[in-house]
């Protein structure tokens, strides 16, 4: 499935400034693995060593939080958007 992963500004240093990455993946887990293959270092900013999504990171397929779907096993369809939304603390 051809999907678009949307990269937040805070992680674009790992994608050479790209705000989106087009790749082939059938599940969210496969999309993160494919992302890591293209842009090493991104996976550890999204998932723990135990293979779980970091607690302060949110992944959305379209408008849906994957925690409310099937987590990393959530299936992706052609044309889906996968958005990474990490917690950011700054603001002062």
């Amino acid at each position: 499935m051809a999907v678009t992963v949307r990269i937040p500004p805070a992680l674009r240093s790992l994608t050479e400034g790209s705000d989106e990455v087009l790749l082939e993946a059938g599940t969210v887990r496969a999309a993160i693995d494919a992302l890591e293959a293209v842009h090493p270092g991104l996976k550890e900013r999204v998932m723990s060593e135990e293979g779980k999504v970091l607690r302060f990171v949110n992944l959305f397929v379209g408008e849906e939080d994957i925690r409310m779907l099937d987590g990393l096993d959530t299936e992706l369809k052609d044309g889906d958007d996968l958005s990474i939304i990490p917690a950011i603390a700054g603001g002062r």
Partner: protein
Amino acid sequence: MNPLADQTVLLVGAGGLGCPAGHALARAGVGRLVVVDDDTVEGTNLHRQILFCESDIGRPKATVAAERLMSLGPHVHAEARLTRFLPETAASLLEGVDLVVEGSDNFPSKFVVADACALHRVPVVQAGAVRWGGWALAVGASGPGPRHTTCLRCVFEEPPRAPALGCERAGIIGPVVGVLGALQATLALRLLAGEPGGSLHSYDGRRDRLRETRPAPRPRCPHARGDIADLERIDYAPTAAGA
């Protein structure tokens, strides 16, 4: 009669988020604004903290912010609290408050505010920003228990254990944090008008994108389960909480 005239908003942090949010809320007619911050104005703040100018350098941010908000008109009453929003100060700071706008720069403070607002059933608008982007979250006053609605712990669960990416390390684009502060004010007005909250907004200033999602409440959120009753028993590590 302006329905906002008898409302009190607590601004946690008079920084890049709190300054534009406070300014917008004062001009919108909020009658009482209480500014919590224990920091002083620095020259490096001036590109984004729009309530301050060069002659304020070295003065307490909360004091200066309250003065500037009061100067906007006789309808605004602003007060300064030169302290931090901590587990031990939360209850007294929330007394008589209708809504909180949180613009601190660290996760422990964000989670202290989120937990205190949940326990005291005070609606809160939280936000964070670095570089070209950020997020804002509108949280209603559902409180703990089975009717709990989406809060910071539903979305981000707990403070990251690694050092957070904040403005000091990553930098911040002044207008980007200004957009998010203005968005916080908009969300605050919507909550004060009776909307339920629960919306998460992410802003990308480089691509000019503002996206709203409505994450469902997390069944395992400690507030949904009633697991948080005493803030002073919670470990808000890894860093000390500050406003």
